[in-house]
């Protein structure tokens, strides 16, 4: 009997170039064009409000005039006076970014987000489902274009370093695969500045000994570099120059819970006052949820009594929420349901768990679901004028109490 060799059940070999770097092209500016299609084809610059602003994102039409990210706005205006300058709209960028991330996560859970518009993927395990890494890269580019409405560039390589540099080279709207045996040919002509950890000063130091390209660096003995740059830095850079980079793709772990608690200076026993504290905590939890882009399915109230007994009560909601008023309604109900009557409370806490990304939202038929819009407006006011700049009316009382207590003490 001869046993079958290479049967289809054999595990697929790990591809030699399993790492993808996906980078959305001129992301903020592209989203602005999606929001207002009349901007298409015109130079668009996001950021740069005020005399000291800097460019956060520039469309390729603006780049043609020499406008670059992080450039002072004043200079950008001089280079391209006809550009449309817009303030950033992070809510819109985050919404598009969530969809972008969903597309990536549908390929593999091994997605490491770097920014709203950039992520690494390790597709070693996705071959059976989606094919070889270059096929996956092409699929991602198609889906991002179709579903996010933004173009992107993808670099494919044996590791993060090569993938990242490949996507940069592929820009705009391109795909570049650097095979393991092409790494040297790809890296060596690049300036040393292309490598992580080589800033202006390191580049100058290296230039003094004639090391200008990655190839120069790879050919320089580590011992020589160590004298110039210090032991650790020299070794790290030399490894990179050889195209070695073993940092794994580390998926982002979403937070498991968001909670706030407060220990009171003196124990509280007045239910109304405690519910007011619960309202403040509920709003803080809700604001955090909104900021991080999550909604909570389950809410937990924690009450520590003067004698250090801790009571906790939880409830799972029919639909996840990030609205302070809704959180408070549940928390207050849980508080009222605690056994016993009057109690002296030392600490109150509100925790949100069962977090789901806020990108998807179950819409409601009935109005009165508008609280979220009100609270979002509060978020914006707080961002601009600081915490407590606008409050639910019930909390004004609390602030006055506090002030009174403090001045009375």
């Amino acid at each position, binding site marked *: 009997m001869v046993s079958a060799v290479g049967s289809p059940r054999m595990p697929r070999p790990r591809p030699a170039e399993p790492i993808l770097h996906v980078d959305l092209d001129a992301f903020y500016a592209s989203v602005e064009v*999606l929001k207002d299609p009349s901007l298409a084809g015109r130079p668009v610059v996001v950021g740069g409000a005020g005399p000291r602003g800097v460019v956060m994102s520039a469309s390729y039409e603006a780049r043609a005039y020499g406008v670059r990210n992080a450039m002072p706005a004043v200079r950008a205006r001089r280079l391209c006076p006809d550009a449309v300058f817009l303030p950033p709209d992070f809510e819109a960028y985050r*919404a598009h970014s969530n969809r972008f991330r*969903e597309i990536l996560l*549908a390929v593999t*859970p091994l997605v490491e987000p770097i920014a709203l518009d950039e992520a690494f993927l390790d597709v070693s395990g996705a071959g059976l489902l989606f094919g070889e890494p270059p096929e996956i890269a092409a699929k991602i580019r198609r889906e991002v274009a179709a579903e996010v409405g933004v173009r992107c560039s993808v670099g494919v390589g044996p590791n993060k370093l090569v993938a990242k540099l490949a996507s940069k080279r592929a820009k705009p709207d391109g795909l570049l695969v650097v095979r393991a045996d092409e790494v040297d040919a790809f890296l060596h002509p690049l300036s040393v500045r292309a490598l992580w950890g080589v800033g202006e000063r390191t580049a100058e130091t290296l230039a003094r000994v004639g090391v200008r390209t990655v190839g120069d660096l790879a050919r320089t003995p580590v011992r020589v570099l160590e004298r110039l740059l210090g032991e650790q830095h020299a070794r790290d850079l030399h490894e990179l120059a050889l195209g070695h980079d073993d940092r794994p793709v580390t998926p982002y772990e979403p937070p498991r819970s968001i909670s706030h608690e407060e220990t009171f200076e003196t124990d509280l026993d007045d239910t109304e006052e405690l519910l007011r504290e619960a309202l403040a905590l509920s709003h803080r939890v809700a604001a955090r949820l909104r900021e991080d882009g999550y909604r909570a399915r389950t809410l937990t109230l924690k009450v520590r009594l003067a004698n250090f007994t801790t009571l906790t009560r939880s409830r799972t909601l*029919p639909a996840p929420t990030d609205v302070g008023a809704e959180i408070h309604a549940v928390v207050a*109900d849980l508080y009222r349901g605690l056994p016993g009557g009057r109690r002296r409370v030392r600490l109150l806490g509100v925790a949100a768990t069962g977090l789901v990304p806020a990108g*998807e939202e179950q819409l*409601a*038929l009935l109005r009165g679901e508008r609280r979220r819009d009100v609270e979002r407006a509060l978020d914006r006011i707080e961002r601009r004028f600081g915490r407590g700049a606008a409050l639910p009316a019930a909390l004004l009382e609390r602030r006055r109490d506090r002030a009174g207590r403090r001045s009375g003490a």
Partner: protein
Amino acid sequence: MKFRCDRDVLSEALQAVQRGVSSRPGIPALTGVLMRAEAGEGLTLTTTDLEVSVRLTVEVQVTEGGTALVPARLLTETVKSLSDAPVEFEADGGQARIRCAAYEGALRLLPAEDFPAIQPPSGMPIVLSAGVFAEAVAQVAKAASRDEARPVLTGILLEISREGVTLVATDSYRLAVRELVATAPGEARAIVPERALSEAARAAAALEKGEVRVFLEESQASFQVDGLTLTSRLIEGEFPNYRQLLPEAYENRLTVSRQQLADAVRRVGLLARDTSPVRLEFNALGVKLSSQSPDLGQAVEAVEARYEGEDLTVAFNPQYLLDGLAAASGETVRLEVRDGLKPGVIRGESEDFTYLVMPVRLPTPVA
């Protein structure tokens, strides 16, 4: 009080009134079943948890009239376990004696004077076919809210007009409306707790034929099925104006096998869990369902159907869709959609049922 009866008659009667027994034993009298025997009128059993009360009269041989409040659960369990032989029941002083075959037991009574008085239904009832009533309640009940924070939505609106009865329930994410043709004595509106109405519907469903008599009063609603009367307090408050939520006709309409669509939603929905919706892509071939969840995987299934309208993608909570598909009647259903932000409408083969379901907004703006 003294009577004699068949074991099955008593056992079934006790189980029928069990749904009115309070599950929270804060008031001991509410854990009891009030038994009143009167020569010529038979035995009347009453239970209440202050929200819902159930009363049932059965024929027994009464030899001595009287009233006793007996612990309901214990009595029900006892009678259920007796051998199949005539039961003799006798209550006086502080206890009830039960004899059946060789068994003899004595149960301590609860103070009957603590049992609340229950208003018998009054006024002109609306008479409905028991089967139709049971079906109608089952169609809308799923859409009622379970969220005690919004009491009005935990009820079912009964709206009575000259044309008949309309049952409406909404948890603000979906809305179910069922219309029944009936001759009504007048106009009335009441919000009945979903639990009470579903109990009445279960009692009605047990009858093969027959009628349900519905009494709507100022603060209570009663449902009479056979010898059983279920009375419920009403929920106070203003029910949302559902008529203004019902959309005008839509241009995009899918006509599809109810079973096929429901099976596909269930299968594809397995990978949606509670966190993500099922996407429905409508096109000339029918509808393509898909779902994905980052930590579970993804699924896709196409269902062939007739679709009139423009290509659209709308996402829904799969359970909400399934509830609507289960409630609609007939082999085929129509699913009408407007866009990703407007409610979808499910209708069965009959025009008397409408189910609205709000979509889940997807983060990508429709390009």
